[in-house]
């Protein structure tokens, strides 16, 4: 298993830049193991929990917090 870490810095509702991170766990040797961009994983949600899992967290004044929940399903993210 490998872990890939993706960064995102984007404004929140108040226009303040917020650090986000997506931590992706990928089964070694799976087709998803060749992905190098977060968009690749987002485009392969049918492989969720079979080849990879992810957690999306944001850095707040309180520390890192889940944007929604731990190991949230992709279809819950929007």
């Amino acid at each position: 298993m490998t872990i890939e870490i993706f960064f995102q810095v984007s404004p929140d509702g108040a226009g303040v830049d917020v650090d986000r991170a997506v931590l992706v766990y990928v089964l070694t040797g799976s087709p998803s193991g060749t992905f190098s961009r977060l968009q690749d994983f987002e485009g392969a949600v049918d492989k969720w929990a079979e080849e990879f899992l992810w957690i999306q967290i944001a850095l707040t004044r309180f520390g890192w917090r889940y944007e929604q929940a731990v190991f949230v399903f992709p279809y819950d993210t929007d």
Partner: protein
Amino acid sequence: MDVFVSNAASEPQLWRAPSPNKIDEVRRLEELSQIAEGLRAAVLRKDPEPLLKYYWRDAEKSDPSSGAWGLPNADGTGTYESEKAHLANPASALSCLLFDTACLRAMACQNAAMIQDSVSQFAISFFQGR
């Protein structure tokens, strides 16, 4: 376990390293790697405490500075205490999703619409490599 880091993207204006300071970036990556590994280990140990560490506390959600990030946990109905209780309850959906594949499969049989077939094996099985 190997850890790979990427900020490559087709839209560099959206995805980029969080800081121009390389030292800060290295520290951030180390921190995130530790978080990721800690969460994986917690699932394998069936230990909810490390998982709870990154949930919004109820007091934080009411802090004005939380802004758009001060969202309830999970599906919008959870509180820190309720999530903690769910994680501690082996019969809860959340506990099944994270810690008990057999329980999750039973739930899927009872309510196929609630849990997709694609997630019939979830966190702990995933981290165990099945």
